[in-house]
């Protein structure tokens, strides 16, 4: 029963990995598949693998994927350019043929009644796994420990970056700022804070300069790139409305409303 509920969900999530554009969504769909697999392990009398699947796969490996996605950039989406002509269609067709062959072949096999693991699991699944792991598979186990050490050292070597320039100290950064001011007149002080108004004090509202134009440096560049910065005309409408509510006529006020360049 569990199988027939989980299997469609898992297949749908796995198919989703093929079709979603963003890598983050693919990672989350993979998490769905892995959790489904963990439950299936529990159904198949493998409680140890159930825990390991959740802890190691969903907990560690998928989080590693998400970390790397954050480092690489969430919007590193797939390109649709084909370097080999017709490769995508051919790969899909061949993959479907592989799946068809596998599924038809396997569904013609009769496996007979399952022996079940009651006998093998006497004394507990984890204890029995430990018995086998530390007797018959002890050399494989030792080899995996060497593999894990090698992997950890290899990851450190690959991720290491030699520092080519000396680290910027606070004094050198201050001197650089002064040089910038002398050469290009770049503002010395900190950036302007976002606008704080009666109706809006969110970070997406630009501060207004004395001449009424919005100050681009007062909102985060990330928000500007996403295009969620509130435009100055919308802000001016808000101000007009407040003034109307207060009984002032906005037309008599000298509020310059400039067209937002964004």
């Amino acid at each position, binding site marked *: 029963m569990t199988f027939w509920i989980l299997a469609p969900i898992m*297949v749908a999530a796995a198919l989703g990995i*093929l079709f979603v554009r963003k*890598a983050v969504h693919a990672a989350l769909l993979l998490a769905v598949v892995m959790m489904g*697999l963990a439950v299936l392990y529990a159904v198949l009398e493998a409680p140890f693998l159930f825990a390991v699947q959740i802890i190691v796969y969903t907990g560690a490996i998928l989080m590693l994927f998400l970390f790397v996605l954050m480092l690489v950039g969430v919007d590193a989406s797939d390109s649709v350019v084909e370097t080999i002509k017709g490769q995508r269609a051919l790969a899909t067709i061949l993959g479907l043929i592989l799946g068809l062959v596998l*599924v038809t072949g*396997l569904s013609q096999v009769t496996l007979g009644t399952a022996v079940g693991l009651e006998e093998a699991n006497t004394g507990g699944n984890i204890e029995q796994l430990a018995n086998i792991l530390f007797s018959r*598979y002890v050399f494989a186990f030792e080899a995996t420990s060497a593999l894990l050490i090698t992997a950890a050292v290899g990851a450190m070597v690959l991720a290491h970056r030699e520092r080519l320039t000396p680290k910027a100290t606070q004094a050198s950064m201050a001197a650089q700022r002064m040089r910038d001011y002398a050469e290009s007149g770049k503002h010395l002080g900190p950036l302007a804070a976002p606008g704080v108004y009666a109706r809006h004090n969110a970070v997406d509202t630009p501060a207004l300069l004395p001449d009424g134009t919005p100050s681009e440096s007062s909102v985060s560049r990330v928000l500007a790139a996403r295009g969620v910065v509130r435009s100055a005309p919308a802000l001016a409408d808000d101000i007009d409305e407040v003034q109307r509510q207060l009984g002032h006529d906005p037309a008599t006020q000298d509020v310059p409303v400039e067209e937002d360049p964004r």
Partner: protein
Amino acid sequence: MTQYVVLSAILFTIGCIGVLTRRNAIVVFMCIELMLNACNLALVAFAKQHGNLDGQIAAFFVMVVAAAEVVIGLAIIMTIFRTRRSASVDDASLLKY
């Protein structure tokens, strides 16, 4: 028990198609993980079928190897991304020429 093996074959096929069609190296890597997981499911299903824990041990070793592989693979992807600002498998093609 057959249905578990069939599901495992389906997941393996989906992972296979993903490796062949997707261009983002990280998504390709996820599809490899999907294939490894599908194999694990078959191993655990056969362990129950035969009443033998060796299949579960094999699945356990696959998980350990997959963990080591992910660490190294993602480190390589990071290194390539650092030098060429791209995570696409098509961009790392200098060895071709």
